[in-house]
């Protein structure tokens, strides 16, 4: 029964695990690159959903992504790839603690505005601080000195696995109930004994770690970071559009949403070329209008 519950997840992950070894001819390298970004942005979306499960609309995920990217990018030449990624995630986590400790008493849109301001402040700092490369940008070394071409892909895969594991833990443990209670009514949750601020802070911390890891891996793939790219609001919007498209407050929703939406964007760009955004936008609108529970709503199973 437990295995059957995880079947959709296994079916989602299997093609990505096998992708590097599939005989795809000339398309192989291209699909690996597309797969890299699908995995990475799906992980970012899942990290956003972890926070959204407490009812908080975070626009700080671009900032966590940027903190992780800059943290890892700056540290990688000194400490190596994996420690740099972990330290980058820790920097993002520290950012989440600072943001959370002063703003998590705010609700809904007020928190969203505060998190947006947080992103803007960090972007400005990245532009002004002397060690970030400022507006000129920061070159980042490839993972493991570029000796293993598939390293970035497997790192991206690992980040998504970790995000999924965290999300499944949150979904299957009593933490889910605390998150759901906090989302539905903080006052009632408090009466029920839920330590609302602590639940929100933990959710934000978990989300920021994953977003920071994703940012670190992103920098190692693109080899260059600029404050406007790394701390982009567009990244935060992408992180929230994917769970809405796939299905909010679940593990499967952001996973399905990320795989479908990021792949769809690449495919439309390939086939339609100019004007692909019109089709992409129309599909988004149709899904939001007719599938209010997202793509996983089609399965007819209510989760969360």
């Amino acid at each position, binding site marked *: 029964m437990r295995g059957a519950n995880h079947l959709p997840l296994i079916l989602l992950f299997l093609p990505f695990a096998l992708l590097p070894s599939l005989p795809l001819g*000339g*398309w*192989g*390298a*291209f699909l*690996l*690159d*597309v797969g890299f*970004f699908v995995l990475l*942005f799906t992980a970012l979306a899942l990290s956003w959903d972890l926070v959204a499960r407490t009812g908080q609309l975070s626009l700080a995920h671009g900032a966590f992504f940027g903190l992780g990217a800059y943290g890892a990018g700056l540290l990688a030449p000194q400490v190596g790839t994996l420690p740099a990624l972990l330290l980058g995630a820790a920097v993002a986590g520290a950012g989440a603690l600072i943001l959370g400790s002063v703003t998590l008493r705010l609700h809904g849109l007020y928190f969203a505005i505060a998190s947006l301001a947080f992103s803007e402040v960090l972007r*400005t700092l990245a*532009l002004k601080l002397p060690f970030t490369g*400022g*507006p*000129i*940008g920061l*070159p980042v070394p*490839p993972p493991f000195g*570029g000796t293993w*071409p598939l390293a970035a892909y497997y790192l991206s895969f690992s980040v998504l696995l970790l995000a999924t594991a965290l999300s499944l833990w949150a979904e299957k443990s009593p933490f889910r109930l605390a998150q759901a209670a906090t989302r539905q009514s903080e006052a009632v949750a408090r009466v029920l004994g839920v330590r609302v601020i602590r639940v929100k802070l933990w959710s934000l911390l978990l989300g920021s770690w994953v977003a920071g890891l994703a940012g670190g891996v*992103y920098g190692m*793939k*693109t*080899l*260059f970071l*600029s*404050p*406007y*790219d790394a701390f982009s609001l567009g990244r935060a919007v992408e992180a929230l559009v994917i769970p809405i498209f796939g299905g909010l407050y679940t593990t499967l929703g952001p996973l399905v949403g990320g795989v479908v939406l990021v792949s769809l964007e*690449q495919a439309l*760009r*390939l086939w339609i*070329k*100019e004007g*692909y*955004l019109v089709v992409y936008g129309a599909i988004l609108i149709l899904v939001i209008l007719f599938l209010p529970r997202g793509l996983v709503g089609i399965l007819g199973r209510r989760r969360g």
Partner: protein
Amino acid sequence: MRKVVGFLVLIAGLAWAQIPLKAGVILPLSGASAVSGKAALNGIQLAADEVNAAGKVRLELVVVDDGTDPAKAVPAFTKLMTVDKVDIVIGGLASGVTFALSGPVKQHGPLFLVIGAASSVVEQAFEGYPLFFHYHPWDYHNVAAALQFFQYLNREHGAKKVAILYEDGPFGSAGIGVYRQQLEKLGYQVQAEPFKTGSGQFTAILTRFRAFAPDILYWIGYDVDALPIATQARQVGLRPKLIYGAPPSWPIGFERNPLSNDIAGMTAWLPTVANAESRRFVDAYRKKYGEVTEEYMAPMGYTIVRSLALAAEQAGSADKNRIAEALAGLKMNTPFGPLSFKPSDTGHTKYQGFGPEIWFQFQYLQGSRRPVFPKAVATRPLRYPGEYYFR
């Protein structure tokens, strides 16, 4: 029958003599740099038509959109290399995206003909890559060209104070420290303030500038900032002797707005440039697209394809290494003036096309942009002081 056979043999011979070239084009057709990317693509396609009509080279283009985003550019580039199997790539307009391509380019090893990417960070990223041909001047060339104009204003017109309004993003902030330092070295008093591009709110900064009473209001931002700055400078009663803007592209139709009059800026090309290649390009562009462009990325794209075809002809081969050898020794006239490749000023890259000499200053005068400096290219005298009043 013999005539038919002879004709067929002739056709087959011509086809045989043609050099088949397949080139990938990776440009921002969406995202922040889409205006420049589309202009570049127009120039590239125009040149490809001309090359194919001439018959010596049969050029096939595979165009992909980099979305002005590294996350979209990297897979698009990989597709060009592994699916479309091109050996030659034209592109690299935005610096950040081009930097992100440096890894994949080194991995796949194409002949990379770079249309933009002026940041010298890109120059360092491609150091040692043997097939990197950079056509656009580097950022230090841009600074040199602008400073030459400011030196002239200081010497000939007695300008002494510059108020710099710069956007707080990478484009506006990257060189601001150097600019400030260099202007002070030229004898200017400088007051500089950042702004957020697209905000449309400049009155507070411009009012502070009024107390400084600058001779020159120099703004570094994007096309969306041009009109608000022109309007609000007048609103607050700032009366500089020259408004000088440095956006990557100017707003479409800005010249038709009377507020643009007397505003100056820098570009690498205008349709009014008086050289034979430029005139030929303008005529051909008008014929194909029914309009004239003022985006210098269009003739830049055109120049790259023309030079590629000429190098292929001289090499007599579609082999990327032989074409690169021919390109390295190529000398040709272009809408920007003569083109030849030499090592970059810093020595980081081996093949640099244009330098500071292609930049010139223009002024919006009676509904169009006119070259005003240096004197060798000026078609009108610079209006200094300009009149920046509400009429």
